[in-house]
């Protein structure tokens, strides 16, 4: 413990849906650590509608819990239309295809669009910094590459769950 999280109040934090699953159910210590990190940093996780889809299935209850608790909110992020944002999604798609050894057309649109959404967000709202959280390694690399090649590496930072709550989170795992 004693490790600070990289989150701070002046950031806008965009989260991918998988973060809500990586932290487990509300009873899970990892969930509580993440919620505490977010609340202590004074931020609200912004969950683009495009990446969560419909909150219909039984498995989406933990997302609803975070929304009800007020430390996450769904935002209507503008689809990438700005040139930089469109290019970012293309770069992310190419990176993910290469990381996963697949053809570009096999890359899920939503995985690739996260990079475009982040840059469009910066273009639309001019926040000082944007943090993008996703627990998918190929997607993280895609966003990083896109931000870097479009000149947003100072504005957009990409993290995984371990960057926020540490990588000793497995100590609470029930094995059998």
């Amino acid at each position, binding site marked *: 413990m004693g490790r600070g999280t990289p989150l701070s109040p002046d950031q806008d934090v965009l989260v991918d*849906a*998988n973060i*809500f*699953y*990586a932290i*487990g159910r509300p009873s899970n210590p990892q969930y509580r650590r993440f919620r505490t990190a977010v609340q202590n940093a004074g931020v609200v996780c912004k969950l683009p509608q495009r990446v*969560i*889809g419909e909150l219909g*299935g*039984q*498995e*989406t209850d933990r*997302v609803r819990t975070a929304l009800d608790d007020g430390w996450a909110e769904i935002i209507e992020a503008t689809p990438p239309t700005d040139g930089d944002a469109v290019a970012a999604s293309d770069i992310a798609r190419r990176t*993910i295809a290469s*990381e*996963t*050894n*697949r053809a570009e057309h*096999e*890359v*899920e649109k*939503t*995985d690739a669009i996260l990079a475009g959404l982040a840059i469009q967000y910066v273009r639309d709202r001019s926040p000082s910094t944007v943090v993008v959280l996703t*627990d*998918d*390694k*190929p*997607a993280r690399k895609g966003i990083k590459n896109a931000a870097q090649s479009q000149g947003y590496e100072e504005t957009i930072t990409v993290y995984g769950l371990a960057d926020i709550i540490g*990588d*000793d*989170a*497995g*100590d609470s*795992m*029930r*094995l*059998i």
Partner: protein
Amino acid sequence: MSVDSLKYMDFELKSMTSDYDQLRSDGGIRTLDPPPIDALDEETLEPETLAQNASRLETIVELLNHPALARVYVYVCYWGPVAPPAVMEALDLSKSTTYEYVDRLVDLGLVDRDDSTRPQQLTADPIIIVEQYIPIVITPTVLHALALQEIDEDISYFIDRYGIGKLIAALRGAGLHFAGETTQRMVASDIDVRETEAMMIVYALEPALAVGREHDPFFEYLFPDVHDEMELPGLDEIAGAPTNSADTDE
């Protein structure tokens, strides 16, 4: 790996290592259709051989149909040698249930009971079934994944909705995810479940992968390509994790 530990390998295995490419990178399954006519030879089809294999087939069916029983088997396999009271405590079972399951596992030949010590010690050899034409792969990691439905509501929800075949596909997809070889949305599309369901099941299966990677001698059969690339919590960080019984003398 000792020959003893392979005692359940009598199913068709001969050319299996050359068929790793039949495991699709996405965790899905490519069916070979139809199998070559000589897939089974006269020797395999000897009534005597079939009769010998029958009990093993029944054993596997029994484990697949009874996740609570599979859970005890997996516990003894990974944590053994272990005494029944320790099984009872670790799995939060009643005394009578524990002994009932242990008796059944001993009868099935899956668990060995050493009565020469007090308390008696239980051990279990890891089992493996690979059938390349369906294909089917069952190892302790797979049985562990199935057994988790006893304690994990995400896994029991997934199995209720999609069945155990798809859970095994999800297990393969989860392994690829933790190795950074696929995204969870790709897993969803590959195994045809909702994106959020794929995300849910990938994390729910993490314990089976974390233990299997260190204690399932057949882990590579399921993950020939990524068995040493997964980013998972190390067992030394997790309370109550099995230790390597060769290293510890209790």
